[in-house]
């Protein structure tokens, strides 16, 4: 270790050696702060984190030995310790293509334990930073004093603000390289203030530091007597914690799990998202709206008189009312809203772009519902904050959209309560997490549309027709023979006295869907509408036959999910592309090959063959008549029709 290195100031205190019991008692009362550091490699982020770990003595001697060794061999600081080496080591993994969204580091002082979210990499920066910031109480935005406020500083600040982090430190780093100039520091602070106002950031704390030299990191720097504020670590030790701030909010707890060990006990387990709860409190269960009082707050360590935001507890009620996972328990006189249409910000995190109309799983609180983006409003350019019209969102794009869920859900605006306002979207095919979302508000109209209960229901319609309703969904390439086969099937069913209706792709596009084109987004909407129409027809008791290319698995799955169990019958009309192209009944393949027709399935737009079709008919082996007969036989056998 080089001589001029300051001795670590924290944790090494004599108390450990002298009186370990007293030390332990003291450290039982530590609090915990989670923060994120934002900045690129050049801003000295790794050096700063390494410095914090080092100064708080989280480095063991064997690690230190290898650090000193590495510093000499591969470090960038000559004979001095290169702190960055403590936290790097992810570079190699990055090269191998391993996804690193966030690395978490830990250190502690006498007052606090800290969890630092470090987000490496440039390409995935938005996704990574949003992930790291979602759990942070505080953000440290690093600026190189020589460079000042850069485009990426704006981007980091925008994201920090978007995720609702109230406590922002502007760490003006590398002050040693600008001769510890107060003038330079204040110039940067002034620039930043202007920008912070623009994005609606209420306040921030600027601190001039040098991560490398240790100025204003742990203690006040002698090199900058003109700076009177706290050192970085002193501020980190005092900054407020989000969970604590949430205690002043009305009580909210999403139910995770119902605990029923025996007939005498029914408890509702969850982690309190906001507020405080005591036995006797009047509560309401949402979305049902049923009310009761809290009987007890049960924990392994005995019943509690009070529990606060952040604690994981189990509640019992005075009355036996329905309550299950996904429900939200709220303070009776201050409930949260319940709605099924929202305006939200979406941060897109997947390679595959967002498609309006495509159903995703939306997970909020402890419940999962099906959701679709109904109306993309605009995309935000994270560098300039400009709004751009956009119908979709690609990887790392941020946009504002309207979202509709298949059920009404209890929620709060993200800005008020991240626990009931932050959600993730999950792709239903791959199960990947594709987006993070933040609810702004509910759309008014969603509170005014209700389901109309009808007396003559779908069973009544079906029994009058003496048949079981179904959707027979033909999918396959253009020219595979879907319409031809469906037509024959309908004739046969008609002859058997069945009530049927054929929805044909081309015909629907002349009317219901005349406003749609052939982009991926429009194809999804096309199928969604057809699915809804088909569903209404099954409610009317009909056997619906559809003939649509319907190239995407997700959309066919969406329609399947719309229907009652067993009422969606997927028929894959399996015709190899060469054969369909050779047939070219409508001359479309020729046009597509010559470039006159864009987004043509099989040519420049993909077809995803079904993995679990109820029936496959191969039109190379079977005639249209035989294929149709096979379908009819399947229907008669499978659905008791």
């Amino acid at each position: 270790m080089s001589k001029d290195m300051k001795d670590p100031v924290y944790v090494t205190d004599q108390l450990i050696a002298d009186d370990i019991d007293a030390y332990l008692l003291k450290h039982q009362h530590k609090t915990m702060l989670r923060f994120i550091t934002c900045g690129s490699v050049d801003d000295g982020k790794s050096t700063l984190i390494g410095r914090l770990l080092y100064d708080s003595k989280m480095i063991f001697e064997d690690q230190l030995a290898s650090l000193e060794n590495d510093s000499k061999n591969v470090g960038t600081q000559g004979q001095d310790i290169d702190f960055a080496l403590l936290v790097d080591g992810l570079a190699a993994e990055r090269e191998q293509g391993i996804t690193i969204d966030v690395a978490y580091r830990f250190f502690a002082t006498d007052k606090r334990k800290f969890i630092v979210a470090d987000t490496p990499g440039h390409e995935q920066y938005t996704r990574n930073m949003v992930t790291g910031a979602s759990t942070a109480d505080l953000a440290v935005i690093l600026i190189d004093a020589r460079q000042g406020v850069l485009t990426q500083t704006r981007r980091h600040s925008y994201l920090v603000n978007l995720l609702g982090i109230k406590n922002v430190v502007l760490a003006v780093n590398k002050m040693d390289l600008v001769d510890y100039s107060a003038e330079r520091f204040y110039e940067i602070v002034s620039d930043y203030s202007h920008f912070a106002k623009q994005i609606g950031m209420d306040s921030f704390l600027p601190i001039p530091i040098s991560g490398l030299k240790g100025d204003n990191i742990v203690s006040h720097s002698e090199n900058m007597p003109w700076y009177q504020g706290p050192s970085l670590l002193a501020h980190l030790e005092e900054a407020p914690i989000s969970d604590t701030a949430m205690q002043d909010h009305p009580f909210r707890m999403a139910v995770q799990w119902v605990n029923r060990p025996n007939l005498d006990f029914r408890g509702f387990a969850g982690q309190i998202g906001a507020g405080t709860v005591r036995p006797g409190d009047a509560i309401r269960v949402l979305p049902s709206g049923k009310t009761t009082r809290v009987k007890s707050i049960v924990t392994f360590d005995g019943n509690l008189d009070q529990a606060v935001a952040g604690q994981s507890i189990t509640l019992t009620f005075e009355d036996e009312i329905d309550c299950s996972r996904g429900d939200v328990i709220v303070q009776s006189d201050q409930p949260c809203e319940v709605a099924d249409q929202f305006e939200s910000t979406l941060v897109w995190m997947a390679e595959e772009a967002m498609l309006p109309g495509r159903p995703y799983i939306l997970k909020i609180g402890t419940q999962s519902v099906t959701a679709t983006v109904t109306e993309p409003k605009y995309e935000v350019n994270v560098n300039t904050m400009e709004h751009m019209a956009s119908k979709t969102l690609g990887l790392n794009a941020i946009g504002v959209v309207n979202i509709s869920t298949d059920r009404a859900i209890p929620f709060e605006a993200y800005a008020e309560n991240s626990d009931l306002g932050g959600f993730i979207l999950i792709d239903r095919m791959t199960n990947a997490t594709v987006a993070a979302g933040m609810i702004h508000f509910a759309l008014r109209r969603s509170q005014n549309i209700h389901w109309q209960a009808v007396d003559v229901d779908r069973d009544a319609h079906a029994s009058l027709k003496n048949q079981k309703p179904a959707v027979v969904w033909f999918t396959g390439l253009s020219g595979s023979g879907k319409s031809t086969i469906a037509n024959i099937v309908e004739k046969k069913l008609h002859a058997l006295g069945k009530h049927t209706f054929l929805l044909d792709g081309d015909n629907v596009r002349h009317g219901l869907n005349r406003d749609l084109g052939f982009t991926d987004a429009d194809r999804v909407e096309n199928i969604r509408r057809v699915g809804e129409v088909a569903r209404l027809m099954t409610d009317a008791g009909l056997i619906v036959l559809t003939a649509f290319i319907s190239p995407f698995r997700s959309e066919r799955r969406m329609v399947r999910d719309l229907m009652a169990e067993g009422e969606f019958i997927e028929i894959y009309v399996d015709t190899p592309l060469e054969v369909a192209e050779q047939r070219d009944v409508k001359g479309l393949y020729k046009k597509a090959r010559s470039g006159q027709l864009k987004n043509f399935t099989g040519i420049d737009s993909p077809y995803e063959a079904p993995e679990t079709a109820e029936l496959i008919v191969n039109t190379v082996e079977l005639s249209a008549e035989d294929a149709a007969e096979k379908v009819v036989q399947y229907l008669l056998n499978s659905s008791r029709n």
Partner: protein
Amino acid sequence: MSSQTATDPSISQETLTHLQRLEAESIHIMREVVANADNPVMLYSVGKDSACMLHLAKKAFYPAPPPFPLLHVDTTWKFQAMYELRDRAAEEAGMKLLVHHNPEAMEKGINPFDHGSLHTDMWKTDGLKQALTKYNFDVAFGGARRDEEKSRAKERIFSFRSANHRWDPKNQRPELWRQYNTRKSKGESIRVFPLSNWTELDIWQYIHLEGIEIVPLYFSQPRPVVERDGLLIMVDDDRFPLREGETPEMRSVRFRTLGCYPLTGAVESEASTLPEVIQEMLLTTTSERQGRAIDHDQSASMEKKKQEGYF
């Protein structure tokens, strides 16, 4: 109950302590798993982290017992004291204990003296995969922490494994807020690490505060050891083949980490109480995993083992 427990609100009415927050987070994670999994299991290695994890599970589901079994993937080479605590701890928690021995390793008599890294590969890596497949577990809790090693800092709390138990580092999901995406495709399974955000010191403090029973091997007492390849190895039973010139001698030692006894280095110590152990840990100069022979093979060995399915 004791007024010193981590969940006692009288400690602080306003701000939860770091241990209270860590505890609440771990409980939340465990409940998410139980609410979503078809057939979860808790991997139990009898070490201090496992002890903590088991204690948290008791808290998470109280007054019910934890609604999943414990699984010990055994090598037959653990310390005797570990087997004793294992059986008792499971019983006290009201949980079923499953012990799996890789039948192939059993048959071939695989041991740490003759078979080197094959010992870990077969007993632990293959054994774990066999057990998960055999019982059809879809989620397995593990006690790994992010502070254990530099490469673990980036580890997710919910880590997805393919049908053949491989870890695909390119296909892991971002974890936002408290929202864990627990959906899995057919054949996939999940390893869940509820102690991800705990540090070694947190674990020790929690054990101290909560009075959690741990294997006595963590405390110093005179034990028969031999010095071999720079490690102090305890002669725990008569299967230990002594080399020429080796005579076990009684030394006051303890263990920082527990595994197969022939692979686990002891440290000389006088720390015989929990506060003394913590004191020693705080003043110590070598990091935790140094006592384990497995890591010395190659620097990226942990990463490689993980991809193959060893945790």
